[in-house]
């Protein structure tokens, strides 16, 4: 079933007053049904742009995206998205937050059935005992779990994850990764995930697609993960090839870093010295 999801010569260009800026160019990616693909790259490399185009939230400049035989045109519930922050309605309970979406895509279900759908997915993310807690009373990790339940409850054809665990501490992150894989074991949803965490990409995906730094970002390298499913983290970590893949990915990222640095140094010298060496602030800006 090759090409369940097809991204064909995908490109994104913004018009600025200094002329057009090409963010993503000639981006090609085919995903089979049920495949888990990670887009790995530095922040600002254009991977979010690709994801937002797939979500239909950002217009496509060139090329196209086909999901399950239909070219996408704008957003729709056939594609579930989980962002870094879950954006829940803080005054609503966990259950009500999930029901928001469920009520729209299951108009033919009874009220009890809709409740069961929402409660079922919340129990899968181990929030079965917190159904009636207000979102504002949940920890960040729990809120993100509600976000995951909400996405799965709509039974999307394609799941889009934009650094979904980026805000969480590393041990909570590991736990949520495992919860997500557990659900995927039941509902084999085709998934595209963005991350800059190499270990996360290794553990979660069937295939890791490394992106070159933007502008003109494209696919730089592809790695197929040799780890068996269902994934057991201890076994993945023990796998003889784990650290080999890890080093190669880190090397790729470092190489991109150097290129970026090189470009910046050129730009810097070109535009004479003025700002202080406050590298950290520029990072803060880049993050937000």
């Amino acid at each position: 079933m090759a090409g369940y999801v097809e991204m064909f010569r995908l490109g994104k260009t913004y018009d600025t007053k200094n002329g057009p800026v090409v963010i993503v160019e000639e981006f090609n990616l085919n995903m089979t049904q049920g495949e888990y693909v990670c887009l790995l790259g530095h922040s600002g490399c254009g991977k979010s742009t690709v994801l937002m185009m797939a979500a239909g939230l950002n217009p496509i400049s060139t090329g196209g995206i086909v999901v399950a035989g239909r070219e996408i045109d704008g957003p729709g519930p056939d594609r579930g998205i989980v962002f870094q922050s879950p954006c829940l309605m803080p005054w609503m309970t966990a259950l009500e937050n999930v029901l928001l979406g469920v009520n729209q895509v299951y108009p033919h279900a009874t009220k009890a059935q809709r409740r069961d759908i929402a409660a079922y997915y919340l129990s899968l993310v181990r929030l079965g005992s917190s159904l009636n807690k207000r979102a504002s009373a949940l920890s960040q990790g729990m809120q993100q779990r509600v976000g995951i339940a909400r996405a799965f409850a709509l039974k999307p054809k394609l799941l889009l994850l934009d650094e979904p665990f980026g805000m969480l501490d590393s041990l909570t992150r590991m736990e949520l990764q495992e919860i997500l894989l557990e659900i995927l074991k039941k509902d084999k949803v085709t998934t595209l995930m963005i991350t800059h965490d190499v270990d996360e990409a290794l553990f979660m995906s069937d295939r890791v697609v490394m992106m070159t730094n933007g502008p003109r970002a494209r696919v730089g390298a592809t790695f197929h993960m040799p780890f068996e499913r269902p994934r057991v983290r201890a076994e993945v970590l023990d796998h003889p090839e784990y650290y080999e893949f890890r080093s190669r990915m880190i090397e790729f990222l470092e190489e991109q870093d150097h290129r970026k640095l090189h470009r910046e140094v050129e730009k810097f010298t070109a535009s004479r010295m003025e700002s202080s060496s406050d590298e950290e602030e520029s990072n803060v800006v880049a993050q937000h």
Partner: protein
Amino acid sequence: MSIDSHYDQSTDQANKMTTAFKVQATRESPIQSVQPPIPIIEMRGVVKGYGSGVTRTEVLHNINLNIRQGEFLAVCGFSGSGKTTFMQLLAGLLLPDQGVILMEGEPIVGPGPDRGLVFQNYSLLPWLTVRGNIALSVDSVFSNWAKGERRDHVEKFIEMVGLSHAAHRRPHELSGGMRQRTSLARTLAMKPKVLLLDEPLSALDALTRAQLQDEILKIWEEERQTCVMITNDVDEAILVADRIVPLNPGPKASLGPTFAVDLQRPRNRAALNHNSTFKNLRRAVTNYLLAVRKKSRDDEAAHSNEPIIRLPDLQPVELRRYPKWIPT
């Protein structure tokens, strides 16, 4: 709140605190010495809980730990495993229900300037500059010093954390990382015997976090002051620490076995990724933490009586024309 409580210290204590600690263990000798060094902090059979009677929950259970002079110790655990309680006990902000915590042989009965705490939420005074915040602590702790001496001391620590260019700024004009640097400089400038870092970096983004880890490591390698850091990040723990102690998941959290980090210093983050000891240790600590968590989850599930919900056999409607975007 802990740092504020440092302000009203007597000069006697302040003098005592300036004594430098240069005792650095030579760990390579495989021979057992007759007179082992005395730990700077000893926790013996420490139990801490909240509430009483049936509503009592025990957070920490039977904690035994020796903290060594001049070492960097990382306590690694999941959120909700009592990490903060653990640190507050060391800081003296909480007292144990059972057991005892000794600092250089004396029971810890409250906060003191010999233990400097840096925590996740930098408690800087918003109306003071970076310099002002650090000076406030230095002036109160070293009030017997000459003015010029205190000023030089403040500048030294501003420089140490790389904030010379921002010394005149107020907290709201600083990034999260810079605020945490200020907080760190303020605590370091008080010259505590033991530096307590309670997840100091967990509120920061990955890049800033990495920069501050390197910074902390660099400062520690210069000062070699006893340092206890709580973290939830195995890589961070291995990068900075001499020893790693896992805190098993609560309730009734206890300490796991101590892992030795036998990696040469100075350590370099990039080089470690290719080091086989690093890889194996990372695997060992991660496997340990995952296994204890699995055990605690399994125990929990065995006691759970949540109803099992069956998923209705329904498919979502095909929305041919998308009426509006549903925020998922």
